[in-house]
Protein backbone atom coordinates (compact mmCIF):
# COMPACT_ATOMS: atom_id res chain seq x y z
CA UNK A 1 0.00 0.00 0.00
CA UNK A 2 1.71 3.18 -1.13
CA UNK A 3 1.44 6.36 0.92
CA UNK A 4 1.02 9.50 -1.14
CA UNK A 5 -0.48 12.18 1.05
CA UNK A 6 0.29 13.53 4.52
CA UNK A 7 -1.70 15.79 6.79
CA UNK A 8 0.55 17.30 9.43
CA UNK A 9 2.75 14.29 10.15
CA UNK A 10 0.02 11.70 9.62
CA UNK A 11 0.15 9.45 6.60
CA UNK A 12 -2.96 9.16 4.43
CA UNK A 13 -3.36 5.71 2.95
CA UNK A 14 -3.90 5.43 -0.79
CA UNK A 15 -7.27 3.80 -0.42
CA UNK A 16 -10.93 4.63 -0.49
CA UNK A 17 -14.04 4.43 1.65
CA UNK A 18 -16.86 2.43 0.18
CA UNK A 19 -20.41 3.62 0.82
CA UNK A 20 -23.92 2.64 -0.14
CA UNK A 21 -27.05 4.41 -1.33
CA UNK A 22 -29.69 4.72 1.38
CA UNK A 23 -33.06 6.39 1.66
CA UNK A 24 -33.06 9.25 4.11
CA UNK A 25 -35.53 11.56 5.82
CA UNK A 26 -35.21 14.44 8.23
CA UNK A 27 -37.43 15.00 11.25
CA UNK A 28 -37.72 18.39 12.89
CA UNK A 29 -38.71 17.75 16.48
CA UNK A 30 -39.73 20.70 18.61
CA UNK A 31 -40.48 20.87 22.32
CA UNK A 32 -41.00 23.32 25.14
CA UNK A 33 -37.26 23.73 25.60
CA UNK A 34 -33.95 22.31 24.46
CA UNK A 35 -33.82 19.87 27.35
CA UNK A 36 -36.88 18.00 26.13
CA UNK A 37 -35.61 18.16 22.54
CA UNK A 38 -32.50 16.43 23.75
CA UNK A 39 -34.40 13.75 25.66
CA UNK A 40 -36.52 13.08 22.60
CA UNK A 41 -33.59 13.06 20.20
CA UNK A 42 -31.61 10.62 22.32
CA UNK A 43 -34.54 8.25 22.55
CA UNK A 44 -35.61 8.48 18.91
CA UNK A 45 -32.10 7.91 17.57
CA UNK A 46 -31.16 5.24 20.08
CA UNK A 47 -30.24 1.73 18.94
CA UNK A 48 -29.75 3.03 15.40
CA UNK A 49 -26.04 2.56 14.81
CA UNK A 50 -25.94 0.24 11.82
CA UNK A 51 -28.52 -1.40 9.58
CA UNK A 52 -26.58 -4.61 10.13
CA UNK A 53 -28.51 -4.99 13.33
CA UNK A 54 -30.86 -2.01 13.62
CA UNK A 55 -33.97 -1.01 11.67
CA UNK A 56 -32.40 2.32 10.71
CA UNK A 57 -29.29 4.43 11.10
CA UNK A 58 -30.07 7.67 12.82
CA UNK A 59 -28.52 10.60 14.57
CA UNK A 60 -28.82 14.20 15.59
CA UNK A 61 -27.95 16.54 12.74
CA UNK A 62 -28.08 19.72 14.81
CA UNK A 63 -30.14 21.66 17.31
CA UNK A 64 -32.34 24.41 15.93
CA UNK A 65 -33.14 27.87 17.24
CA UNK A 66 -36.70 29.06 17.75
CA UNK A 67 -36.52 31.04 14.52
CA UNK A 68 -35.72 27.91 12.51
CA UNK A 69 -38.63 25.72 13.59
CA UNK A 70 -42.17 25.64 12.19
CA UNK A 71 -43.84 26.41 15.53
CA UNK A 72 -41.30 28.83 16.97
CA UNK A 73 -40.05 26.57 19.77
CA UNK A 74 -36.68 24.98 20.41
CA UNK A 75 -36.01 22.14 18.00
CA UNK A 76 -33.67 19.47 16.82
CA UNK A 77 -33.09 18.01 13.35
CA UNK A 78 -32.77 14.23 13.19
CA UNK A 79 -31.68 12.24 10.15
CA UNK A 80 -32.78 8.65 9.53
CA UNK A 81 -31.36 6.29 6.91
CA UNK A 82 -32.57 2.88 5.70
CA UNK A 83 -32.12 0.70 2.63
CA UNK A 84 -35.67 1.19 1.33
CA UNK A 85 -38.49 3.67 1.68
CA UNK A 86 -40.75 0.98 3.09
CA UNK A 87 -38.15 0.06 5.69
CA UNK A 88 -37.58 3.69 6.53
CA UNK A 89 -41.27 4.37 7.01
CA UNK A 90 -41.70 1.38 9.28
CA UNK A 91 -38.71 2.31 11.40
CA UNK A 92 -39.53 5.99 11.67
CA UNK A 93 -43.21 5.41 12.44
CA UNK A 94 -42.22 3.08 15.27
CA UNK A 95 -39.63 5.47 16.62
CA UNK A 96 -41.86 8.53 16.44
CA UNK A 97 -44.67 6.56 18.07
CA UNK A 98 -42.53 5.33 20.94
CA UNK A 99 -40.04 8.12 21.44
CA UNK A 100 -41.48 11.40 20.11
CA UNK A 101 -45.21 11.07 20.68
CA UNK A 102 -44.51 9.91 24.21
CA UNK A 103 -42.07 12.69 25.04
CA UNK A 104 -43.62 15.71 26.83
CA UNK A 105 -44.49 18.81 24.76
CA UNK A 106 -43.04 17.56 21.48
CA UNK A 107 -44.21 18.05 17.90
CA UNK A 108 -42.76 16.51 14.75
CA UNK A 109 -42.38 18.10 11.32
CA UNK A 110 -40.96 17.16 7.94
CA UNK A 111 -37.50 18.52 7.24
CA UNK A 112 -37.07 17.65 3.56
CA UNK A 113 -38.94 19.76 1.05
CA UNK A 114 -39.07 17.20 -1.75
CA UNK A 115 -42.24 15.19 -1.23
CA UNK A 116 -42.20 13.30 -4.51
CA UNK A 117 -41.42 10.05 -2.74
CA UNK A 118 -42.87 10.57 0.71
CA UNK A 119 -43.30 8.31 3.66
CA UNK A 120 -46.36 8.59 5.83
CA UNK A 121 -45.70 9.26 9.50
CA UNK A 122 -48.46 11.41 11.00
CA UNK A 123 -50.99 9.66 8.81
CA UNK A 124 -50.07 6.39 10.51
CA UNK A 125 -49.87 7.76 14.02
CA UNK A 126 -53.20 9.57 13.88
CA UNK A 127 -55.08 6.43 14.84
CA UNK A 128 -53.67 6.81 18.33
CA UNK A 129 -56.18 9.64 18.61
CA UNK A 130 -58.96 7.06 18.59
CA UNK A 131 -61.25 9.29 16.59
CA UNK A 132 -60.37 12.53 18.40
CA UNK A 133 -57.51 13.36 16.05
CA UNK A 134 -57.90 16.40 13.81
CA UNK A 135 -56.38 17.04 10.42
CA UNK A 136 -55.17 20.52 9.55
CA UNK A 137 -53.98 21.65 6.14
CA UNK A 138 -51.78 24.74 6.12
CA UNK A 139 -50.49 25.65 2.69
CA UNK A 140 -49.44 22.40 1.07
CA UNK A 141 -48.78 20.49 4.29
CA UNK A 142 -51.21 18.40 6.29
CA UNK A 143 -50.77 18.08 10.02
CA UNK A 144 -52.40 15.76 12.49
CA UNK A 145 -53.34 16.91 15.96
CA UNK A 146 -53.57 14.04 18.39
CA UNK A 147 -54.88 14.75 21.90
CA UNK A 148 -52.44 13.80 24.65
CA UNK A 149 -52.40 14.15 28.41
CA UNK A 150 -50.41 17.40 28.26
CA UNK A 151 -52.33 18.94 25.38
CA UNK A 152 -51.75 17.70 21.87
CA UNK A 153 -49.14 16.09 19.68
CA UNK A 154 -48.81 17.73 16.27
CA UNK A 155 -47.23 15.64 13.54
CA UNK A 156 -46.94 16.28 9.85
CA UNK A 157 -48.77 13.77 7.67
CA UNK A 158 -46.04 12.87 5.20
CA UNK A 159 -42.30 13.34 5.19
CA UNK A 160 -40.10 13.76 2.15
CA UNK A 161 -37.33 11.30 1.42
CA UNK A 162 -34.09 11.67 -0.43
CA UNK A 163 -31.48 9.29 -1.80
CA UNK A 164 -28.67 9.64 0.67
CA UNK A 165 -25.46 7.75 1.30
CA UNK A 166 -24.59 5.58 4.24
CA UNK A 167 -21.23 4.20 5.29
CA UNK A 168 -18.80 6.97 4.47
CA UNK A 169 -15.89 6.29 6.79
CA UNK A 170 -12.28 6.66 7.72
CA UNK A 171 -10.01 4.82 10.12
CA UNK A 172 -7.73 6.46 12.64
CA UNK A 173 -4.63 4.34 13.23
CA UNK A 174 -2.99 5.56 16.42
CA UNK A 175 0.02 4.64 18.47
CA UNK A 176 -2.11 4.30 21.62
CA UNK A 177 -5.80 3.96 22.49
CA UNK A 178 -5.65 7.30 24.28
CA UNK A 179 -4.21 9.12 21.28
CA UNK A 180 -6.65 7.39 18.93
CA UNK A 181 -9.66 8.24 21.02
CA UNK A 182 -8.59 11.83 21.41
CA UNK A 183 -8.17 12.15 17.64
CA UNK A 184 -11.55 10.54 17.07
CA UNK A 185 -13.19 12.97 19.46
CA UNK A 186 -11.58 15.87 17.60
CA UNK A 187 -12.90 14.51 14.30
CA UNK A 188 -16.39 14.03 15.69
CA UNK A 189 -16.46 17.53 17.09
CA UNK A 190 -15.47 18.97 13.72
CA UNK A 191 -17.93 16.88 11.70
CA UNK A 192 -20.83 17.71 14.00
CA UNK A 193 -20.58 21.35 12.92
CA UNK A 194 -21.62 20.37 9.40
CA UNK A 195 -25.18 20.12 8.05
CA UNK A 196 -26.70 17.13 6.26
CA UNK A 197 -24.54 14.48 7.95
CA UNK A 198 -24.81 12.32 11.03
CA UNK A 199 -22.48 10.02 12.91
CA UNK A 200 -24.80 7.15 13.87
CA UNK A 201 -22.51 5.29 16.27
CA UNK A 202 -22.12 5.99 20.00
CA UNK A 203 -20.30 9.27 20.36
CA UNK A 204 -19.72 9.14 16.61
CA UNK A 205 -16.92 6.58 17.01
CA UNK A 206 -16.71 2.86 16.21
CA UNK A 207 -14.23 0.54 17.85
CA UNK A 208 -15.56 -2.69 16.31
CA UNK A 209 -14.95 -2.22 12.61
CA UNK A 210 -16.41 -5.14 10.71
CA UNK A 211 -15.85 -7.15 7.59
CA UNK A 212 -18.55 -8.80 5.52
CA UNK A 213 -19.40 -12.35 6.55
CA UNK A 214 -18.14 -14.69 9.22
CA UNK A 215 -17.07 -18.25 9.75
CA UNK A 216 -20.46 -18.60 11.46
CA UNK A 217 -23.24 -18.86 8.88
CA UNK A 218 -25.80 -16.81 10.78
CA UNK A 219 -23.61 -13.72 11.03
CA UNK A 220 -23.67 -11.08 8.27
CA UNK A 221 -20.63 -9.28 9.64
CA UNK A 222 -17.79 -10.05 12.00
CA UNK A 223 -14.73 -8.40 13.46
CA UNK A 224 -12.24 -7.02 10.99
CA UNK A 225 -9.22 -8.93 12.28
CA UNK A 226 -6.81 -7.17 9.95
CA UNK A 227 -7.29 -4.03 12.05
CA UNK A 228 -7.22 -5.69 15.48
CA UNK A 229 -3.88 -4.97 17.19
CA UNK A 230 -4.21 -8.04 19.41
CA UNK A 231 -4.28 -10.32 16.36
CA UNK A 232 -1.49 -8.65 14.42
CA UNK A 233 0.92 -11.52 14.93
CA UNK A 234 -1.42 -14.28 13.93
CA UNK A 235 -3.48 -12.93 11.00
CA UNK A 236 -2.48 -10.88 7.95
CA UNK A 237 -2.53 -7.43 9.52
CA UNK A 238 -3.22 -4.06 7.91
CA UNK A 239 -1.56 -2.26 10.81
CA UNK A 240 1.87 -0.70 10.79
CA UNK A 241 4.15 -1.91 13.57
CA UNK A 242 3.65 1.13 15.81
CA UNK A 243 -0.17 1.10 15.76
CA UNK A 244 -1.84 0.00 18.98
CA UNK A 245 -5.43 1.15 18.42
CA UNK A 246 -7.80 1.87 15.54
CA UNK A 247 -11.01 3.87 15.67
CA UNK A 248 -13.46 4.28 12.81
CA UNK A 249 -15.65 7.29 12.07
CA UNK A 250 -18.77 6.33 10.10
CA UNK A 251 -20.69 9.07 8.32
CA UNK A 252 -24.16 9.03 6.76
CA UNK A 253 -25.08 12.01 4.61
CA UNK A 254 -27.65 13.36 2.24
CA UNK A 255 -25.31 13.64 -0.73
CA UNK A 256 -21.87 12.65 -1.97
CA UNK A 257 -20.65 16.21 -1.43
CA UNK A 258 -21.83 16.18 2.17
CA UNK A 259 -19.94 12.95 2.89
CA UNK A 260 -16.80 14.20 1.15
CA UNK A 261 -16.82 17.45 3.08
CA UNK A 262 -17.39 15.67 6.38
CA UNK A 263 -14.59 13.18 5.71
CA UNK A 264 -12.20 15.97 4.80
CA UNK A 265 -13.01 18.01 7.89
CA UNK A 266 -12.87 14.93 10.10
CA UNK A 267 -9.57 13.68 8.76
CA UNK A 268 -7.96 17.08 9.08
CA UNK A 269 -9.12 17.31 12.68
CA UNK A 270 -7.93 13.78 13.46
CA UNK A 271 -4.41 14.22 12.14
CA UNK A 272 -2.80 15.15 15.42
CA UNK A 273 0.10 13.92 17.46
CA UNK A 274 -0.01 10.17 18.05
CA UNK A 275 -1.99 9.36 14.91
CA UNK A 276 0.18 7.28 12.60
CA UNK A 277 -2.09 6.86 9.63
CA UNK A 278 -5.57 7.53 8.27
CA UNK A 279 -7.09 4.74 6.25
CA UNK A 280 -10.60 3.78 5.16
CA UNK A 281 -12.84 0.73 5.07
CA UNK A 282 -13.89 -0.86 1.82
CA UNK A 283 -14.84 -4.20 0.37
CA UNK A 284 -12.70 -4.02 -2.73
CA UNK A 285 -15.24 -1.81 -4.46
CA UNK A 286 -17.61 -4.72 -5.01
CA UNK A 287 -20.45 -3.80 -2.69
CA UNK A 288 -21.02 -0.07 -2.70
CA UNK A 289 -21.15 2.24 -5.74
CA UNK A 290 -19.88 5.28 -3.83
CA UNK A 291 -16.11 5.35 -3.47
CA UNK A 292 -14.41 8.15 -1.56
CA UNK A 293 -10.68 8.11 -2.28
CA UNK A 294 -8.89 9.76 0.60
CA UNK A 295 -6.27 11.50 -1.53
CA UNK A 296 -8.95 13.07 -3.72
CA UNK A 297 -11.00 14.22 -0.75
CA UNK A 298 -7.97 15.90 0.77
CA UNK A 299 -6.99 17.60 -2.44
CA UNK A 300 -4.37 15.20 -3.74
CA UNK A 301 -1.32 16.67 -2.03
CA UNK A 302 0.08 17.45 1.37
CA UNK A 303 -2.70 19.24 3.18
Amino acid at each position, binding site marked *: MSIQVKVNSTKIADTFAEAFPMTACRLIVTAANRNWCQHCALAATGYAASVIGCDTEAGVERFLSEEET*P*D*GRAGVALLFFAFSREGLQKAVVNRVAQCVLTCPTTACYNGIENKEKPIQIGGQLRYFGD*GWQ*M*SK*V*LGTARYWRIPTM*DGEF*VCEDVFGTIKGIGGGNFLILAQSPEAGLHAAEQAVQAIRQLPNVILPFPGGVVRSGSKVGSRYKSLKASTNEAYCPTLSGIVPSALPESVRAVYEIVIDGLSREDISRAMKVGIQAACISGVIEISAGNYGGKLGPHHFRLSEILGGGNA
Partner: protein
Amino acid sequence: MLKLTLKRQPTYPVEAGTIAPDRWRNLSLPQIGGIALVHGNRSLRLDDFFSIEGDPSDEILEIQGDCRLFKGIGSGMQSGFLKMLGPSGWHTGAFLRGGKIELHGDTGDHLGSEMRGGEIRLFGNAGHAVGGAYSGSRHGMRGGTIFVEGNCGHEVGSKMRRGLIAIRGACGDYLGVNMIAGTIVCLKPAGIRAGAGLKRGSLLCFGGVREIPLNYRRSHHVDLTFLRLLSRFLNRQGFHLPPSVLQQPLARYCGDLLSIARGELLLPEPTP
Protein backbone atom coordinates in the same frame (compact mmCIF):
# COMPACT_ATOMS: atom_id res chain seq x y z
CA MET B 1 -49.38 41.52 -17.85
CA LEU B 2 -52.86 42.10 -19.27
CA LYS B 3 -54.76 45.12 -18.05
CA LEU B 4 -58.52 45.67 -18.23
CA THR B 5 -59.85 49.11 -17.43
CA LEU B 6 -63.58 49.57 -16.96
CA LYS B 7 -64.89 52.10 -19.45
CA ARG B 8 -68.64 51.51 -19.18
CA GLN B 9 -70.67 50.60 -16.12
CA PRO B 10 -73.21 47.86 -16.81
CA THR B 11 -76.86 48.55 -16.09
CA TYR B 12 -77.56 45.02 -14.83
CA PRO B 13 -75.38 42.35 -13.26
CA VAL B 14 -72.99 40.76 -15.73
CA GLU B 15 -72.12 37.06 -15.78
CA ALA B 16 -68.33 37.41 -15.97
CA GLY B 17 -67.18 33.90 -15.11
CA THR B 18 -65.11 33.82 -18.27
CA ILE B 19 -62.69 36.40 -16.88
CA ALA B 20 -59.66 34.48 -15.63
CA PRO B 21 -56.01 34.97 -16.62
CA ASP B 22 -55.21 31.29 -17.19
CA ARG B 23 -57.95 30.91 -19.81
CA TRP B 24 -56.61 33.81 -21.85
CA ARG B 25 -52.98 32.77 -21.93
CA ASN B 26 -53.01 31.79 -25.61
CA LEU B 27 -55.48 34.36 -26.89
CA SER B 28 -54.77 37.53 -28.85
CA LEU B 29 -56.12 40.89 -27.69
CA PRO B 30 -58.90 40.90 -30.35
CA GLN B 31 -59.94 37.41 -29.28
CA ILE B 32 -60.04 38.52 -25.65
CA GLY B 33 -62.05 41.58 -26.60
CA GLY B 34 -64.59 39.35 -28.31
CA ILE B 35 -65.26 37.15 -25.28
CA ALA B 36 -68.96 37.06 -24.50
CA LEU B 37 -70.35 38.46 -21.26
CA VAL B 38 -74.03 38.02 -20.45
CA HIS B 39 -75.51 41.38 -19.51
CA GLY B 40 -79.07 41.01 -18.34
CA ASN B 41 -80.59 38.87 -21.10
CA ARG B 42 -78.18 40.01 -23.81
CA SER B 43 -74.75 38.77 -24.79
CA LEU B 44 -72.19 41.54 -25.11
CA ARG B 45 -68.45 41.60 -25.77
CA LEU B 46 -65.75 42.10 -23.15
CA ASP B 47 -64.47 45.17 -24.97
CA ASP B 48 -67.94 46.73 -24.69
CA PHE B 49 -67.11 47.20 -21.01
CA PHE B 50 -63.33 47.25 -20.76
CA SER B 51 -60.42 48.75 -22.59
CA ILE B 52 -57.80 46.03 -23.00
CA GLU B 53 -54.05 46.39 -23.18
CA GLY B 54 -50.96 44.31 -22.49
CA ASP B 55 -49.92 40.71 -22.94
CA PRO B 56 -51.92 37.79 -21.51
CA SER B 57 -49.21 35.15 -21.94
CA ASP B 58 -47.79 35.47 -18.41
CA GLU B 59 -51.21 34.81 -16.82
CA ILE B 60 -51.18 38.07 -14.92
CA LEU B 61 -54.37 40.08 -15.15
CA GLU B 62 -55.13 43.44 -13.58
CA ILE B 63 -58.64 44.88 -13.60
CA GLN B 64 -59.30 48.50 -12.72
CA GLY B 65 -62.66 50.04 -11.98
CA ASP B 66 -65.85 49.51 -10.02
CA CYS B 67 -66.76 45.94 -10.97
CA ARG B 68 -69.37 45.25 -8.29
CA LEU B 69 -71.90 44.26 -10.96
CA PHE B 70 -69.57 41.71 -12.56
CA LYS B 71 -70.29 38.27 -11.12
CA GLY B 72 -67.87 35.37 -10.92
CA ILE B 73 -64.64 37.05 -11.96
CA GLY B 74 -61.80 34.55 -11.57
CA SER B 75 -64.16 31.67 -10.89
CA GLY B 76 -62.67 28.29 -11.64
CA MET B 77 -59.23 29.81 -12.17
CA GLN B 78 -56.48 27.20 -12.05
CA SER B 79 -53.31 29.26 -12.19
CA GLY B 80 -52.02 32.78 -12.66
CA PHE B 81 -52.51 36.01 -10.79
CA LEU B 82 -55.58 38.22 -10.83
CA LYS B 83 -55.51 41.66 -9.26
CA MET B 84 -58.58 43.83 -8.98
CA LEU B 85 -58.26 47.51 -8.12
CA GLY B 86 -61.77 48.48 -7.10
CA PRO B 87 -64.87 46.73 -5.79
CA SER B 88 -65.73 43.30 -7.17
CA GLY B 89 -69.02 41.49 -7.43
CA TRP B 90 -70.57 38.27 -6.21
CA HIS B 91 -68.91 34.89 -6.62
CA THR B 92 -65.43 36.32 -7.16
CA GLY B 93 -62.97 33.43 -7.10
CA ALA B 94 -65.71 30.84 -6.65
CA PHE B 95 -64.57 27.30 -7.50
CA LEU B 96 -60.96 28.54 -7.54
CA ARG B 97 -58.49 25.69 -8.03
CA GLY B 98 -55.13 27.44 -8.10
CA GLY B 99 -53.31 30.70 -8.60
CA LYS B 100 -53.80 33.84 -6.60
CA ILE B 101 -56.45 36.54 -6.50
CA GLU B 102 -55.80 39.88 -4.86
CA LEU B 103 -58.74 42.21 -4.35
CA HIS B 104 -58.31 45.85 -3.42
CA GLY B 105 -61.83 46.94 -2.60
CA ASP B 106 -64.99 45.44 -1.17
CA THR B 107 -66.48 42.33 -2.69
CA GLY B 108 -69.91 40.73 -2.80
CA ASP B 109 -71.28 37.45 -1.50
CA HIS B 110 -69.78 34.00 -2.07
CA LEU B 111 -66.16 35.08 -2.28
CA GLY B 112 -64.19 31.87 -2.95
CA SER B 113 -67.24 29.69 -2.47
CA GLU B 114 -66.52 26.01 -3.01
CA MET B 115 -62.92 26.77 -3.95
CA ARG B 116 -60.48 23.85 -3.95
CA GLY B 117 -57.08 25.51 -3.95
CA GLY B 118 -55.15 28.69 -4.53
CA GLU B 119 -55.23 31.87 -2.51
CA ILE B 120 -57.55 34.85 -2.25
CA ARG B 121 -56.43 37.97 -0.47
CA LEU B 122 -59.04 40.66 0.10
CA PHE B 123 -58.13 44.17 1.21
CA GLY B 124 -61.67 45.25 1.98
CA ASN B 125 -64.92 43.85 3.26
CA ALA B 126 -66.69 40.74 2.00
CA GLY B 127 -70.34 39.80 1.77
CA HIS B 128 -71.92 36.60 2.99
CA ALA B 129 -70.83 32.98 2.57
CA VAL B 130 -67.11 33.58 2.16
CA GLY B 131 -65.64 30.16 1.25
CA GLY B 132 -69.07 28.69 1.83
CA ALA B 133 -71.33 26.30 0.01
CA TYR B 134 -74.01 27.11 -2.50
CA SER B 135 -77.53 26.10 -1.63
CA GLY B 136 -77.90 22.37 -2.14
CA SER B 137 -74.17 21.68 -2.25
CA ARG B 138 -72.66 19.13 0.11
CA HIS B 139 -69.39 20.98 0.63
CA GLY B 140 -68.15 24.52 0.80
CA MET B 141 -64.51 25.37 0.41
CA ARG B 142 -62.37 22.24 -0.05
CA GLY B 143 -58.87 23.69 -0.04
CA GLY B 144 -56.79 26.81 -0.40
CA THR B 145 -56.60 29.95 1.69
CA ILE B 146 -58.67 33.11 1.99
CA PHE B 147 -57.28 36.17 3.78
CA VAL B 148 -59.71 39.01 4.49
CA GLU B 149 -58.33 42.23 5.91
CA GLY B 150 -61.81 43.66 6.53
CA ASN B 151 -65.13 42.33 7.82
CA CYS B 152 -67.30 39.51 6.52
CA GLY B 153 -71.02 38.84 6.43
CA HIS B 154 -72.95 35.81 7.60
CA GLU B 155 -72.25 32.12 7.08
CA VAL B 156 -68.52 32.37 6.50
CA GLY B 157 -67.17 28.89 5.68
CA SER B 158 -70.52 27.17 5.63
CA LYS B 159 -70.06 23.42 5.02
CA MET B 160 -66.35 24.08 4.63
CA ARG B 161 -64.47 20.82 4.11
CA ARG B 162 -60.80 21.86 4.15
CA GLY B 163 -58.56 24.93 3.95
CA LEU B 164 -58.07 28.13 5.90
CA ILE B 165 -60.00 31.40 6.18
CA ALA B 166 -58.36 34.21 8.14
CA ILE B 167 -60.36 37.38 8.83
CA ARG B 168 -58.89 40.42 10.46
CA GLY B 169 -62.23 42.09 11.03
CA ALA B 170 -65.56 40.95 12.44
CA CYS B 171 -67.94 38.29 11.14
CA GLY B 172 -71.68 38.00 10.94
CA ASP B 173 -73.84 35.22 12.27
CA TYR B 174 -73.45 31.48 11.70
CA LEU B 175 -69.70 31.56 11.32
CA GLY B 176 -68.63 28.07 10.15
CA VAL B 177 -72.18 26.76 10.12
CA ASN B 178 -72.29 23.03 9.33
CA MET B 179 -68.55 23.12 8.85
CA ILE B 180 -67.06 19.68 8.19
CA ALA B 181 -63.36 20.47 8.69
CA GLY B 182 -60.82 23.21 8.09
CA THR B 183 -59.83 26.29 10.05
CA ILE B 184 -61.36 29.74 10.40
CA VAL B 185 -59.56 32.53 12.24
CA CYS B 186 -61.45 35.69 13.14
CA LEU B 187 -59.73 38.47 15.05
CA LYS B 188 -62.79 40.62 15.85
CA PRO B 189 -66.14 39.54 17.32
CA ALA B 190 -68.35 37.09 15.51
CA GLY B 191 -72.12 37.03 15.56
CA ILE B 192 -74.53 34.50 17.01
CA ARG B 193 -74.59 30.73 16.42
CA ALA B 194 -70.89 30.48 15.58
CA GLY B 195 -70.03 26.84 14.92
CA ALA B 196 -73.63 25.67 14.69
CA GLY B 197 -73.61 22.12 13.32
CA LEU B 198 -69.80 21.97 13.35
CA LYS B 199 -68.55 18.41 12.81
CA ARG B 200 -64.77 18.73 12.87
CA GLY B 201 -62.66 21.78 12.23
CA SER B 202 -61.49 24.74 14.24
CA LEU B 203 -63.03 28.14 14.81
CA LEU B 204 -60.56 30.54 16.38
CA CYS B 205 -62.59 33.56 17.43
CA PHE B 206 -59.99 35.77 19.05
CA GLY B 207 -62.51 38.57 19.31
CA GLY B 208 -65.12 36.38 20.97
CA VAL B 209 -68.63 35.56 19.86
CA ARG B 210 -71.86 37.32 20.68
CA GLU B 211 -73.08 34.27 22.59
CA ILE B 212 -71.38 31.01 23.49
CA PRO B 213 -73.39 28.23 21.87
CA LEU B 214 -75.28 26.08 24.39
CA ASN B 215 -74.45 22.91 22.54
CA TYR B 216 -70.72 23.22 23.19
CA ARG B 217 -68.84 21.94 26.24
CA ARG B 218 -65.94 23.79 27.72
CA SER B 219 -62.70 21.82 28.10
CA HIS B 220 -59.60 22.61 30.15
CA HIS B 221 -57.33 25.35 28.91
CA VAL B 222 -54.07 24.18 27.39
CA ASP B 223 -51.31 25.73 25.35
CA LEU B 224 -52.02 24.31 21.91
CA THR B 225 -48.98 23.60 19.74
CA PHE B 226 -51.17 24.03 16.70
CA LEU B 227 -51.76 27.68 17.55
CA ARG B 228 -48.03 28.32 17.43
CA LEU B 229 -47.80 26.53 14.11
CA LEU B 230 -50.74 28.44 12.73
CA SER B 231 -49.49 31.85 13.83
CA ARG B 232 -46.09 31.18 12.25
CA PHE B 233 -47.80 30.06 9.06
CA LEU B 234 -49.99 33.17 8.97
CA ASN B 235 -46.96 35.38 9.58
CA ARG B 236 -45.16 33.77 6.68
CA GLN B 237 -48.20 34.43 4.52
CA GLY B 238 -48.17 38.11 5.45
CA PHE B 239 -51.20 37.88 7.76
CA HIS B 240 -49.59 38.98 11.00
CA LEU B 241 -51.38 38.27 14.24
CA PRO B 242 -50.90 41.03 16.85
CA PRO B 243 -48.99 39.82 19.94
CA SER B 244 -51.97 40.81 22.12
CA VAL B 245 -54.08 38.26 20.27
CA LEU B 246 -51.61 35.44 20.79
CA GLN B 247 -50.90 36.23 24.42
CA GLN B 248 -54.48 36.23 25.63
CA PRO B 249 -55.61 33.06 27.39
CA LEU B 250 -58.04 31.01 25.34
CA ALA B 251 -60.83 28.72 26.37
CA ARG B 252 -61.55 25.65 24.28
CA TYR B 253 -65.10 24.55 23.66
CA CYS B 254 -65.84 21.18 22.07
CA GLY B 255 -68.81 20.68 19.83
CA ASP B 256 -71.21 20.83 18.20
CA LEU B 257 -72.90 18.27 20.43
CA LEU B 258 -75.83 18.17 18.02
CA SER B 259 -73.38 16.92 15.42
CA ILE B 260 -70.46 14.54 16.02
CA ALA B 261 -68.75 17.00 18.41
CA ARG B 262 -65.26 16.62 17.04
CA GLY B 263 -64.79 20.31 16.39
CA GLU B 264 -63.39 23.10 18.54
CA LEU B 265 -64.26 26.68 19.24
CA LEU B 266 -61.45 28.73 20.74
CA LEU B 267 -62.54 31.88 22.53
CA PRO B 268 -60.86 34.41 24.79
CA GLU B 269 -61.04 33.34 28.41
CA PRO B 270 -63.84 35.35 30.08
CA THR B 271 -62.50 37.87 32.56
CA PRO B 272 -63.79 37.24 36.13
